[in-house]
C-alpha cells in the first residue's frame, strides 16, 4: 500500500483518535502527521491490513501521550474547535465521552467507534482483556449519569 493509499484509508481513523485524545484540532493535526511519518520512518513489517490498522492505532495513541507532555494548556469548549455540524444530542454525547479520563475514553472510542473486540483492544493497549472490560464498565458508569441528565433536560 502506498503512502497516499495509507493516509486516504486510515487518515480519518487516525485523526478521530487523535482528536478524541487531545480535544484540540491543532494538536490532533500534529499527532496525525507524526503517526503517519512514524510509519515511513519505522517501516514495520505488517502482515495484513488488520496489523497495519492496529499498528497505526497504537502509534497514534503513543504520539498523543508524547504530545501531552508539551501540550498547550488551553481550555476550550470541546466542540468549539471541531469544524463540523453536530446535532445537540451528538454534541452532548461527544462532549461527555471526550470529558472522560484518558484511559476510559480510549476504550470507549475503540469499542464503540472502531468496533474492535475486547481482545484486540487489550493487545493494542498492552493490557489484559479483563482490564479492558473493567475500563469499559467504569466508563459506562461515568457516562450514564451525564447522558441521562443531558437527555432528561431535553425532554
Amino acid at each position, binding site marked *: 500500500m*502506498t*503512502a*497516499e493509499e*495509507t*493516509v*486516504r484509508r486510515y*487518515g*480519518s481513523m*487516525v*485523526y*478521530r483518535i487523535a*482528536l*478524541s485524545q487531545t480535544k484540540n484540532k*491543532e494538536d490532533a*493535526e*500534529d499527532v*496525525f*502527521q*507524526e503517526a*503517519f*511519518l512514524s*510509519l*515511513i*520512518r519505522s517501516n514495520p513489517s505488517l502482515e495484513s491490513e488488520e496489523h497495519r490498522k492496529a499498528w497505526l492505532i497504537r502509534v497514534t495513541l503513543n504520539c498523543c501521550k508524547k504530545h501531552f*507532555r*508539551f*501540550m*498547550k494548556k*488551553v481550555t476550550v469548549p470541546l466542540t468549539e474547535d*471541531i*469544524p*463540523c*455540524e*453536530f*446535532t445537540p*444530542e*451528538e*454534541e*452532548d*454525547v*461527544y462532549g461527555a*465521552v471526550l470529558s472522560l479520563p484518558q484511559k476510559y475514553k480510549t476504550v*470507549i*472510542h475503540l469499542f*464503540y*467507534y472502531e468496533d474492535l473486540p475486547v481482545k484486540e483492544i487489550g493487545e493494542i493497549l498492552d493490557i489484559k482483556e479483563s482490564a479492558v472490560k473493567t475500563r469499559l464498565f467504569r466508563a*459506562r458508569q461515568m*457516562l450514564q449519569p451525564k*447522558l441521562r441528565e443531558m*437527555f432528561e433536560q431535553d425532554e
Partner: protein
Amino acid sequence: MNRMNKYRSAMDKVEPPKELTEKTIHLMEAQKKPAPQPRRHGFRPVYGFAAAAACLFFLLAVPALLDSGSGHIFITELEAGTHTSPVELTDGFLLFEEPSGVFVSPGVHVGKRGVKEEWEIARYEEYIGRVVSLPYRPDGFSLKEESATVYLDEDGKVVRDHYQARYRDPDDGELTVSISSGVLPEGSDYDVPDNSFIRGEPLYAGYDPADGRYHVQFMRERIGYLLEARGISQEEFIMIVWHFFE
C-alpha cells in the same frame, strides 16, 4: 448504551482537513524516496501526490544550483520570492512552516538551573565533544559574539549547558547558532513535530513572516541545535543548515 450511536454519528462527521492530508502524503512520499546518486543534478522522480504538487511548483520554480564547496545541493522546488514552499534537496526535504501563534512556555524544558558559570569555548567543546564553529559560513558573515554557559549542581556537575554565537554581515544579516547537550536549546519551539529531514535525519524548519526569520531545530548525536537567521536568502540559510548534516 444506545446513546453511543450518537457518539458514532458525531465521529462520522469528523474528518481531517484536506490540506493536512495532502501535506502528510507529500512529507511521507518525500521521506520514502531512495537516496539519490551523489553529485547527480537534475530532477529526480517523485511519486503520487508529490509528483502533481511538484509539477505545480515547477511552473513557478527557479531551480538553483548552489555550490556547497564539497558537492552540490540542487534545490528543485525553490520558488523565487517565497519562504514557505516545500524545498527539495539532493538528500533532504524542507518545509518552512509559519508559526502557529501559540506560545508555549520554555519552562517545560529549562529544568533545574544551578550555579551559573561561563566557560572558555575550547573547554565547552571538550565537554560536549563537538566543535561549535560554523561548518559553512556565508560570504561576509563574521563572528560578533559567542558564549558558553553551564549550570552546575551542588556537586559541581553540569546540569545544563548553552552555547550561543552571533554572526553578522555588513548588510545587517544576522545568524544565531544555539547549542545544548541532550536537549533542544532554549528558544526552540518545543511544541512542534519535525516536519523536514536532511540525509535521513529529522528536523523542524520554520519561517516567521513577522520578522523575516528562518529557523531550524534538531537533535543530532545527542546535541540540540537551534539555528536562526534574518536578512539572508532562503538559499543561503539552507546551505548553512545542510552543512550541519555533513
